């Protein structure tokens, strides 16, 4: 075990770097770091200094990526520290494992340290920096948990091993996928790290301001801490939606279960619930496909929900929804139980990740007016159904007003269904896939809506319940969705 400590004297700042279990790689790492620091260079030069080391370390099959990751962190962190000129850092970590760096204040306080010291969290209005800092640190812990921090690090490690394989770019599609995912994970990690750093910087500032009796700086920093405390609440929510496709728009599909008109009416109510929910969230909603029931309701329908994080939220609704009520379609006024299945399909934004569709694999069926057609017939019906012959997957659209547009919409649905199928195939690689309607078993009930003999909506996964079914059916779903999303992350965490 060896440790290197670099200290840089001058304008009051010290830079401490500590490595444990460094091996030879760290030794060669340390040399230019040392010289660059001593020659008082800025962080840009630091970055390039590291990259030259990287060339050496890249040749080593394992752990070398961590040099890459560390270097980028060191670069950015130094940028901060040099600007502020009063920063102290401890880098502690093991190459080849995870989370190499732990930012801290000049007196060694870390984010974990803040939560550990259990400072009392007061109301936001109380001007107490410890309270703001503790609240923010607590949020950071929640964010990390929601991002599945440990898993994230393991995945990053796996990806970096992949990235360092010399034959990676023999398969450019795979390579693109890997490097995109790597980039996105790095982005998430960096965001959290930067946030942590910012918190610690403000704490340093406050302490400094007190030492030097600079009341202006103190109030500035206090304000900044409060701002962070508020931001961190939004970030907590964002972190719930950190899945690969969560930011995508999506299709929501509802299908009536067995039970005829009563079930079809229920399916229509469920679809209506999602339409209102989506509109309230400010999403664009379009009905793509709708097969109405003979008497009332729908047999099945597909809507497109357009907007950021539509899939991230809606995916919490996948499964079977059960209704208990006195059926308005039963003259005997008996109590009925009906089911509706809900599927959610992400609409992948990145065209390059789409499954390739061969035109020759498609059978395109259009609505045909019987008889002579052409000038003989004037109909606004222009439904298009597309069958993907190899998989048997179909998509139908009849709500657009021209055949051309119906075909385009149906193709978009088909594309997303095929993408979803592909995701299912890669399920072990990618846990983000949601079940399609055909995969959902009717036993998989996620929520019960009771209108009679008592009134209640209860989520069977989280046990979250409300006593006002009307508001839920009018689209008030956010609490159900959020409680499911956080519960499912907690569950994942326990399984780790």
């Amino acid at each position, binding site marked *: 075990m060896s440790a290197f400590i670099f200290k840089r004297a001058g304008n009051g700042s010290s830079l401490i770097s500590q490595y444990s279990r460094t091996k030879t790689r760290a030794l060669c790492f340390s040399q230019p770091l040392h010289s660059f620091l001593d020659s008082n260079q800025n962080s840009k030069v630091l970055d390039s200094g590291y990259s030259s080391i990287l060339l050496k370390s890249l040749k080593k099959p394992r752990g070398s990526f961590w040099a890459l990751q560390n270097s980028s962190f060191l670069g950015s962190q130094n940028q901060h520290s040099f600007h502020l000129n009063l920063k102290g850092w401890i880098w502690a970590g093991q190459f080849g494992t995870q989370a190499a760096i732990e930012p801290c204040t000049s007196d060694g306080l870390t984010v974990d340290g803040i939560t550990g010291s259990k400072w009392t969290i007061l109301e936001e209005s109380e001007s107490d920096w410890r309270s703001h800092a503790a609240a923010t640190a607590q949020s950071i812990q929640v964010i990390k948990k929601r991002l599945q921090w440990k898993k994230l690090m393991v995945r990053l490690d796996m990806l970096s091993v992949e990235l360092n394989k010399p034959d990676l770019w023999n398969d450019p599609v795979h390579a693109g996928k890997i490097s995109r995912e790597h980039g996105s994970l790095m982005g998430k990690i960096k965001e959290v790290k930067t946030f942590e750093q910012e918190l610690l910087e403000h704490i340093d500032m406050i302490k400094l301001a007190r030492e030097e009796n600079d009341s202006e700086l103190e109030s500035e920093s206090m304000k900044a801490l409060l701002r962070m405390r508020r931001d961190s609440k939004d970030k907590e929510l964002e972190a719930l939606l950190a899945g690969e496709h969560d930011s995508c728009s999506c299709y929501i599909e509802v299908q009536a279960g067995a039970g005829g008109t009563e079930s079809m009416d229920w399916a229509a109510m469920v679809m209506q619930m999602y*339409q209102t929910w989506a509109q309230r969230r400010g999403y664009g909603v379009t009905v793509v496909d709708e097969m109405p029931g003979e008497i009332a309701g729908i047999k099945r329908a597909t809507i497109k929900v357009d907007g950021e994080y539509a899939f991230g939220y809606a995916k919490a609704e996948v499964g079977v929804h059960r209704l208990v009520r006195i059926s308005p379609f039963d003259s005997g006024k008996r109590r009925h139980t009906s089911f509706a299945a809900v599927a959610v399909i992400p609409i992948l934004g990145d065209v390059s990740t789409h499954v390739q569709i061969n035109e020759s694999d498609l059978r395109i069926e259009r609505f045909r007016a019987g008889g002579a*057609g*052409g*000038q003989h017939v*004037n109909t606004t019906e222009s439904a298009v159904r597309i069958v993907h012959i190899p998989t048997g997957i179909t998509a139908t659209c009849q709500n657009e007003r021209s055949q051309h547009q119906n075909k385009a919409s149906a193709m978009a649905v088909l594309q997303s269904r095929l993408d979803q199928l592909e995701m299912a195939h890669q399920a072990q690689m990618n846990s983000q896939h949601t079940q399609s309607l055909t995969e959902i078993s009717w036993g998989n009930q996620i929520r019960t809506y009771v209108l009679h003999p008592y009134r209640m909506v209860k989520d069977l996964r989280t046990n979250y319940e409300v006593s006002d079914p009307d508001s839920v059916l009018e689209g008030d779903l956010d609490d159900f969705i959020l409680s499911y999303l956080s519960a499912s992350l907690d569950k994942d965490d326990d399984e780790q």
Partner: protein
Amino acid sequence: MMKLRLSGLSCGVCANFRRPISLCYSNSISSSSAEVKPKIPLYLRPLSFSASLSELTQWHKWAKNLASSVGSSFVHLDNGPDSTLLRRELNWLLQDLLELQHHSAILSHLESGNSENVDVSVALRAPLEELYCVWRQRIEERRPFQYVVGCEHWRDLVLSVQEGVLIPRPETEMIIDLVENVALNKFPELAKGFWADLGTGSGAIAIATARTLSTHAHAHGRVIATDLSPVAIAVAAFNVQIYGLQDVVEVRKGSWFEPLKDVRGKLAGVLSNPPYVPSGDISGLQAEVGQHEPKLALDGGISGTSDLLHLIDGAASMLKPGGFFALETNGEKQSKFLVDYIENDKPGSFCNINIVSDFAGIQRFVMGFRQ
């Protein structure tokens, strides 16, 4: 006889929906008027009217019930629309009537039937009385939906249409695919020439062709659209303007090739969906077609081929060598007849003659190249 007011905003229709329907509108077009002003389609009119949400809900409920009352009676009568389709049309009517960003919210409010916010005022592009009137026309008089809203969605276009102009059919969308896939892909230089859409009606083929030509690099192709009907001329010109194609599409009034003497032997393409319904079939047509669409655009003479033959004759003299033509026909019988005519009566004029089926498998189009 009530004169048709073609002026845009009032849409020339009923001031009071309680009046007898016959006074609501008239579908006769005075052919004497030299300058026809095209009607502004509903979706382009300003939001100058309003109704409370409860009034709109009431109308919507009434309209939906009227649509539902039809069941499948029109289907049995003359293969007309059923109530499912009519209810979908009702949604589209709302789409055109309301402000785009509020459409889905209001629609889902109407569908859910909840009674909140009934006093909220909703901005409309037509007065509620007119809506009662036009929806009754749609159901009771079988007035085509496209005339009710004043537009037809065709390919990726939204074309203004009104009484006196044939509503473009989905089958005809394929003519543009033929231009793209058969003519331009094989002979890109055709994209630089003059194209003609004869009997253009709403201007559908001409506008879509112009847009296709413009996707070809360095293309300076032009389209000339002709029609005998002054209403068609006015509507086609309006649609050309909507798509900003005044510099690419020229609309000329006259019968078939008559206004094209200056480009004789120079055309790169001749396209047309001429009248091809045999005269004897006109009386048995679906009500939306037979009772509302212009006979001028439908009736193709006793066998339905008189205009098609005239177009073949004209294409032989108007197309430049290598020029492309595509014509829509009534089906197998007419298509085969035309091919026979070309081979026997116009030997050496054309080559690569083909019959192309529409999506329903009906042999709908005849196409080929000038020798």
